[in-house]
């Protein structure tokens, strides 16, 4: 692999990591609220959260480009603050990824949270567990499968991001040139050998990463269904 490809790998992993962590922090309370709330507003939020799923990445990319670019609202605001523009920058990519992967974090968490029997939380409350404690000691362990799903889906989906990056990230080495774009580039340059190295390597690395996750998940997870 060329130094450029290593750089793309680093950019990709950093982007996926940062996106996953930020979305997890933001997604936990949002998912919990969505799982428990019965308000009408929750329906709207549900639909808004799902929007990035339904929209092609190019729609998202287009509007992000307009918003983040020098003519867009966010772009101009940043410019007036003397900050660099977000389009074609790593921070811009993080924002795009967070929007793009939002449902992948929130939906599995919400569904898992909604399936936790209220009776268990009541039992925990009578055993002195505060709401936070209940969340950490009952909800999260009981929904481990959902949490792992949400984290891997988000991480993976960010790694697999292509359309949005193509539109708002460009292809700037070291900043926005992620693996998916690098492979695309190699293919277009007809450099199949490099494409094979990158794509094949990614394929094997992914499988090697997924196998232990699922082995672990499976070993400790299935008992839940038997209860």
């Amino acid at each position, binding site marked *: 692999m060329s130094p450029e490809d290593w750089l793309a790998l680093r950019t990709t992993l950093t982007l996926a990591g940062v996106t996953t962590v930020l979305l997890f922090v933001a997604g936990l309370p949002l998912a919990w609220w969505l799982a428990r709330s019965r308000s009408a507003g929750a329906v709207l939020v549900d639909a808004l959260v799902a929007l990035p799923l339904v929209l092609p990445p190019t729609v998202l990319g287009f509007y992000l480009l307009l918003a983040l670019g020098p003519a867009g609202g966010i772009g101009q605001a940043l410019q007036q603050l003397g900050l660099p523009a977000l389009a074609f920058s790593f921070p811009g990519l993080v924002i795009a990824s967070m929007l793009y992967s939002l449902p992948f974090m929130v939906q599995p968490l919400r569904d898992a949270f909604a399936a936790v029997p209220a*009776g268990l939380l*009541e039992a925990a*409350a009578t055993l*002195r567990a505060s709401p936070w404690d*209940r969340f950490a000691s009952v909800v999260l362990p009981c929904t*481990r499968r959902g949490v792992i799903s949400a984290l891997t889906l988000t991480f993976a989906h960010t790694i697999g991001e292509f359309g949005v990056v193509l539109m708002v990230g460009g292809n700037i080495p070291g900043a926005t040139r992620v693996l998916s774009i690098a492979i695309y580039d190699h293919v277009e340059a007809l450099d199949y050998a490099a494409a094979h190295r990158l794509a094949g390597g990614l394929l094997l690395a992914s499988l090697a990463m997924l196998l232990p996750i699922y082995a672990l998940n499976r070993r400790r997870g299935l008992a*839940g269904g038997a209860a």
Partner: protein
Amino acid sequence: MSIAACFRLARAGFTLDVDLALPGRGVIGIAGPSGAGKSTVLRLIAGLEQAEAGRLQVNGSRWHDGATVLPAHARPVGMVFQDARLFPHLSVRQNVAYGWQRIHPAARRVTLAQAIEAFDLGPLCERDVARLSGGERQRVALARAVAVSPQLMLLDEPLAALDATRKDEILPYLARLARDFALPVLYVSHAPDELAQLADHLVWLQDGRVRACAPAMQLFADPDSPFNQREDCAAVIPARIALHDGRDQLSQAVFDGGALWLAGLRHPPGAAVRLRIAARDVSLARGTPTHSSILNILPATVTALRPHGPWCLVALAVGAATLFARVSHRSVRELALGEGVSVYAQVKAAAMS
């Protein structure tokens, strides 16, 4: 030392409206038909249900007063639910330890080992809770609640899935818990024998309303209380062990009205006991019976007669104590029973516990 609980709550087809003044220690039995609101009252006290209006004060602490509502996890209760509600992701030991770990070490009055021991969970400790029998689950739920060293126990039919032998082990433990830690225990049960054995105070709920709420002795002694409307009604008499006959394993208990021979007690002389004498275990005679295996024959005066379907419940004054006898209408006639009539009450020693 008292509990004052006043709640109003409306559900589709059910309204709870109770105002309870309960003692702040001892076992408080709660009975009543299915759907009467027993579980709902426990849930309100635990803070798991929101009353429309309510006031709750437990031994001096206000848990609920107008808008001020102590959240469930801040109430020092130990609760056993009608369904076990064990944590499926934790082992038996971890389930028992869950609440125990969450209280201040200085507040712990039982060790984890004691809680596990009390319900004989040692061999099951590392077991996955999905792999327990029904009775085993219930014991884990009990141990888990005891382990938080609560200041108020809320038990919702905790022994329903247990066999008689286990019950006989656990009931005295719960009574001891209430006594040793001066703890109020709210005990919902459908089993009259459990209540008679344990309860110091009784509440009868029906259709969301309190039909009776008084000291257990008083309700057991009242021929009109809801607890005495069924076949298995019994009198409960406080007494003191006077002497112990080792050979026959009999004890003599004296009470405010005479003495009774009891078997199966291991209490030392001088100990206070509660005698439970079922109405069906008492027979009446006009003359002094002789040559009978009935050890206890007490002179008594009929104070009330209540027809109970095919039976007649006869309330008797024996000194200051009240006894019941359930006799047939024919006996009433043949013995010419009536208020004020003097009779001999024959009580089988075997009928006390």
